[in-house]
């Protein structure tokens, strides 16, 4: 037989613990709330018109902004700059490179006909191949097509800082 005092204390402790548990249960929905962004899908590849072929000079890199639609949480923007790409004309074809450095995501610059990242000194040749610096891979190429006078780019984003080119 336990003393009445002791059993009363146990009961009160149990009640207190129960109250705490109920209060803590709010942590469940709160955690789900905070973790929700894990379920947000990345941008799907999309064809975006960027300029007319005649605006590109043979072999000279040109940075163009990708203007397209974007859903950002509660905002729908139909005409927003999503990022930019480097275009290089090679005769009647056009090469496109994502301007995002595969190292840590800074914005890559053109230096003459080649490319360099102003952050951690990664350098790439005229074909976007890695020359020197810390980047784990070449610049990310994007598909292009030419429709009449217009150049279109299939805009995508890729994971940063990994050797493989995988979509983000």
């Amino acid at each position, binding site marked *: 037989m336990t003393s009445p005092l002791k059993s009363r204390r146990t009961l009160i402790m149990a009640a207190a613990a129960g109250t705490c548990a109920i209060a803590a249960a709010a942590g469940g929905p709160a955690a789900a709330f905070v973790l929700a962004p894990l379920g947000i899908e990345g941008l799907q590849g999309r064809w975006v018109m960027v300029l007319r072929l005649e605006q590109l000079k043979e072999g000279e890199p040109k940075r163009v902004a990708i203007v397209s639609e974007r859903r950002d949480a509660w905002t729908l923007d139909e005409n927003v700059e999503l990022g930019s790409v480097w275009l290089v004309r090679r005769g009647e074809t056009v090469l496109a490179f994502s301007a995002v450095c595969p190292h840590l995501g800074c914005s890559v610059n053109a230096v003459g006909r080649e490319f360099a990242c102003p952050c951690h000194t990664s350098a790439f040749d005229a074909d976007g191949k890695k020359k020197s610096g810390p980047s784990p891979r070449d610049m990310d190429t994007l598909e292009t097509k030419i429709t009449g006078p217009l150049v279109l780019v299939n805009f995508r*984003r890729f994971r940063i800082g990994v050797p493989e080119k995988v979509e983000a």
Partner: protein
Amino acid sequence: MKKVFDFLDDRTGYRKLLAHALDEPIKGGSRWLYVFGSVLLGMFVVQAVTGVALMTSYAPSETTAWASVHYIQFTQSGGWLVRGLHHFGAQAMVILLAAHMLQVAAFGAYRKPREVTWWLGLSLLGLVLGFALTGYLLPWDQKGYWATRVATNIAGTVPIVGAATQKLAQGGPEYGSLTLTRFYALHVGVLPALVVFLVTAHVALFRKHGVTPAAKADLSKVESFHPAQLAKDVFATVFVLGIVLVFAIREHGAPLDAPADPSSDYPARPEWYFLGLFQLLKYFHGPLEVVGTVGLPTVVGLYLFALPFLDRAPTTALRGRIKAVAPLGIIALGVTLLTVQAIRDDARDEAFKKQRDKATELATTANRLAMGGVPPAGPLVMMNQSWELKGPLLFDKHCAGCHTLRDHGVEKDRTAPKLDGWGTEAWALSMLKDPDADDRFGRTFYKGEMKPIEKDREVIAHFLASQEKGSPGEQMVKTRCTTCHTYGGEGDDSATGLAPELDGWGTQEWLKAQILNPATKKTYRENALDLDRKGHMPRFDDEMSPDDADRLARWILSLR
């Protein structure tokens, strides 16, 4: 008065608490080297007060963050001072933390039985860096945006959990409004709560174990916290606050870069205290990248955590503990060297300096434009609607293939007139003198079409540039030029001629009409773009809005 305090003490017992705080015994006596903890606490209060003040004007979203910080910095009275104190106070805290840590390490104050105090201190160090990282993004300017993107990308390189961590920090796969709200929640809610909790525990444990006197201190001497140490602490806090104030006043607040633009190029750099880490990343290539981003920082963290166990010397004298604390010295030296190297690399990098100057110029313009108010669609839209920012971009995109103007366009590729000074009397005069000059129509298909004018050139040029109705120049144009040109729509061969309308020439309206479509008779005749008019300037109304044409025309004329 005494009665009031007696009443308060009777009900709260505050005198005992106060006495407990003030009478803390300090073995070996008070020292200037003991001030850092107290100064940090003082600065934390400054950050909290200025931070809450900033919260009352700041609005975290992509379209409002930059605009609200601009308002605080430039419009709200005293806003710049509060923002400046918060900005430089944060930097002071980082320096004070380093000093506090080095003092604790030098005195061996992490040793048994103070391990937990040390770990709480390390956690607080992490929290302060967390404050720095999250706070840097909140203005949503170029500097904060690009530097923080690198930081979250670094989180993404952590094996296994990296991708999820990055997504959680960013509030999704990309930067957006949720990134701001999350960073804001961390900065003003989660981190302050944790700091208050940990600081309380840190100080309580410090009081439990007392100060660690220097090895050579005379332990028979015991001073109480009040008055000597308290006076030193207060003086040091006021001194640091004074320095922070000087910086805030000198900078008139804190710098605000141009609004964050994800499609821009920007030479990203972190705040100065992260430059060492930044520099480190240049040295780890390819698959080794994660060593620099995660590996080395983790090793440093583990070492700091384990330091109380590594140091088993029987004495607190630095000499006996040199092996255990040597790595800390090496880390401090390494961070210093890397920081210096990062600064030197940038100072020698001409391309970087050029980009930096360009970014500063853009920031100045954006800040000036926003003085007139930012539209609800946000500061990027504001910049897009500005003729002085949009004009040169439009020129580069649409005009620079054929024309040149100042440093826009390539002289050797030019096939159309040089536009420097277009619309001025000098330009008109040179055109009348020698229309086929190399920098006029000499490189076009229309070379040889216009004959030089010998008589009254100055009078005609003056009229063309001024468009002064009723002037002698106007009469001359009406009578002598309309064989080929039109004036007010009238001309001898008004349906077929090659030459443009001269009424309104050189004005923004004329130029805008010409850019949108040269073949409307407002500038050139309706058949100007017919197939036989090879090499004529094309129309741009299919790829440029009338508003943009107006911005472009205004910019070109602004350079006269």
